[in-house]
């Protein structure tokens, strides 16, 4: 029994390619939305004694409400593509955490409402009720911080048929399945780094509306965020890697990660040059784009590898063994590929769409 007897409307490989491309486009604006809010709140905090920073906080949050609209609309394509390419695992995990999954709707709506109030509050409200105005921004930011946890839990849970069969609730899945928190940290740092780059490039550009002095201050502020967050990724990245579920790290994944890391290192040197006075943020941003594409591709390859592994090979042990060089070649290419794929999914469309471990009957 499956709803997937209808043919796939697009070749599976094309759907997956589009998924990666559309997701990267989406996640960059999500990064700018989440990171922009956090950095704006930081600027607002510093703005208590620094008028340049207060003015900058208002300018930055104005761009966040633009980025958030693009983040939402650009999220439709990945949702469509993941629904077509990974129907059964994605819908199953969504249903298992349905209350949390549905709460994304009110959380995002609430966050957007609060952030609009915060943005337009800089026009005068913040002078009359500064604490309430700032609290509104903080609450909007907090809502935005919760939402990625729900997405990460869902996309981790869908990769583990064995865990799904145990019917975990949202919190069980968030705490017990995959490596949600390391990836969350990775995402937050990426958001802050991308925002740091955006700040330096946008407000440091030739036609920037800021005065030269304010421009220099804001560029340094953005570059410091970019440097700190990108630098911290060199701690967060290995944590994500070492906590990857068994079977996630394959040869191609390692290759893309390595290119992404080298590119990220290059970006750090460029930012450091900028802070020393030599403007290199354009090149740094180009390298960051390479990093983002590599990381997005690696993320997809990890998903593919995990969907093809045996359902009982869950846990960090084998991954660590593999990194240490003691894993077998079979581990690298995905042991048992195809062995578990189509059980219970008779239709050809289903077999195409989901070659992962069959969900055992609970």
């Amino acid at each position: 029994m499956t709803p997937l007897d209808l043919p796939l409307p697009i070749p599976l490989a094309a759907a997956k390619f589009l998924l990666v491309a559309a997701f990267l486009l989406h996640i960059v604006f999500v990064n700018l939305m989440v990171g922009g809010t956090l950095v704006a709140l930081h600027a607002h905090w510093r703005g208590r004694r620094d008028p340049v920073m207060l003015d900058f906080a208002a300018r930055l949050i104005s761009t966040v409400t633009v980025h958030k609209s693009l983040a939402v609309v650009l999220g439709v394509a990945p949702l469509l593509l993941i629904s077509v390419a990974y129907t059964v695992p994605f819908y199953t995990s969504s249903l298992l955490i349905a209350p949390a999954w549905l709460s994304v709707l009110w959380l995002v709506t609430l966050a957007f409402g609060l952030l609009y109030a915060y943005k337009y509050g800089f026009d005068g409200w913040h002078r009359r009720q500064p604490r309430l105005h700032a609290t509104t921004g903080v609450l909007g930011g907090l809502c935005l911080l919760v939402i990625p946890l729900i997405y990460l839990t869902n996309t981790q849970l869908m990769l583990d048929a064995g865990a799904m069969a145990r019917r975990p609730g949202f919190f069980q899945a968030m705490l017990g399945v995959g490596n949600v928190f390391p990836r969350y940290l990775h995402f937050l740092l990426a958001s802050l780094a991308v925002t740091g780059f955006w700040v330096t490039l946008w407000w440091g550009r030739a036609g920037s509306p800021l005065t030269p002095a304010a421009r220099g201050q804001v560029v340094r502020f953005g570059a410091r965020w970019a440097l700190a967050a990108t630098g911290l990724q060199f701690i967060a990245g290995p944590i994500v890697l070492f906590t990857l579920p068994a079977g996630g790290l394959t040869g191609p994944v390692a290759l893309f990660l390595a290119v992404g890391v080298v590119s990220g290192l290059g970006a750090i040197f460029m930012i450091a040059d900028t802070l020393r006075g030599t403007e290199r943020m354009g090149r740094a941003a180009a390298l960051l784009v390479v990093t983002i594409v590599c990381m997005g591709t690696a993320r997809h390859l990890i998903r593919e590898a995990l969907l093809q592994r045996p359902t009982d090979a869950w846990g960090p042990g084998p991954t660590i063994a593999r990194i240490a060089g003691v894993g077998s070649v079979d581990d690298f290419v995905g042991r048992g590929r195809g062995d578990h794929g189509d059980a219970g999914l008779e239709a050809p469309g289903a077999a195409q769409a989901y070659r992962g471990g069959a969900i055992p009957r609970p």
Partner: protein
Amino acid sequence: MDFPYFEFPLIGNRWLIALIASLHVVINHSAAIGGSLVVVLAERRGLLTGDARWDRLAYKLAFAFFILTTTLGALTGVGIWFSVMVSQPAGLAALLRIFFWAWFLEWIVFVVEVAMVLAYFLSWHAFTDRRKHLALGWAYVGTSFLTMVIVTGILGAMLTPGQWLVDRGFWGAFFNPTYLPQLILRSGLALALAAALAQLLGRWFATPDLRAELDRFCARFHLAAVPLLAVGGLWYLAVLPEQVKRLIPAALLTTRYAAWAQHAWLWQVATCLALAGLGVWGLRRTRPWPAPLVLAVFIGLVGTLGAFERVREFVRKPYIIPGYMYANGIRVADVPMLARDGVLKHARWAGEPAVVPGRERQAGRAVYELQCAACHTLEGPNGLGPKVGGMPQAAIAGFIGVQHQVHPFMPPFVGTEAEKLALADYLASLRAAATREATR
């Protein structure tokens, strides 16, 4: 059958979808599709007459529409997807495969629409050449309308799939028999709703003088909507299949009061006449419309749109995709196999793999989740407890066997005799449970 079961607390899944979708459709028709036109024409009026008050009013309306569409409008749009995903995963999975490219194209148009509304609203004070800004506004109106042009094809196919049932082709499904009439009808509703919302907001945004002008300005939208509503609505009714038409009275006023709604076309004519009368009256009036009247017009139009959506969603029953899949996600082609083997055997997530002695009630509950919960709740809206709970098991089982004949909007029961009896046993226990609660 392939997915876990989820039921939204208190209101059930059907009402969850209905609430989110209704909110979305009202915001989308009033503040985006029709609203973009109202704002652009208001700005144009300010430009042509040199009356700065109209430019300021247009900006305020644009601000309200912008906030509304980019928060609640956008999120309820995604919300329809989320809520259908957790309520009707099989149906959504099938629809996505049929209409993937329509949705993909819709996404591209959405991106352009959002870019346009951002550019149009946020650059309001940046343009010195107002005509260029107005051109941006017209582009926004065009993309906003295009979103409806695309999504109407998908919505129409869920009721009248037309040629798709024969060739499984995309174009046959997209340009289905109700496509064009529905598009015309929706256009009329969008115009009238946008005008009504602008009038409502005008109570806060405009001085009394300007408010009177705004009401006259909006009266033209109401008049323009009348022929679209009349032609689209009556054409829509005319192309509906006979068996579908028979369900309209129940869709409008539930089965209990269906006799009151035997002639749906009369409702349409009455709506058009009322709107035409208001439009003519409004054009001649020099004072603002009374606030209660403005509110009543807005509520009336929301009700009209709601009634249309309710009818459209209801009359496609017992299917989610006619001829292919029932409203509970069971494919028509699978019915013989499921009748032979039973549904529980093929339901991956059902707690009970079969009806076994001593666990009949648990099996009945599992059958309820598979076959009934897409439309019913236990004790909430459309609850089965109040409908059949407490009745003898044999009577319920007898009704289940012929439910699709008694109520043509219900799918047939699919499964073995043992599963039917187990379901009847479970349903019979519902009222008893409620009574126990009441007497506790």
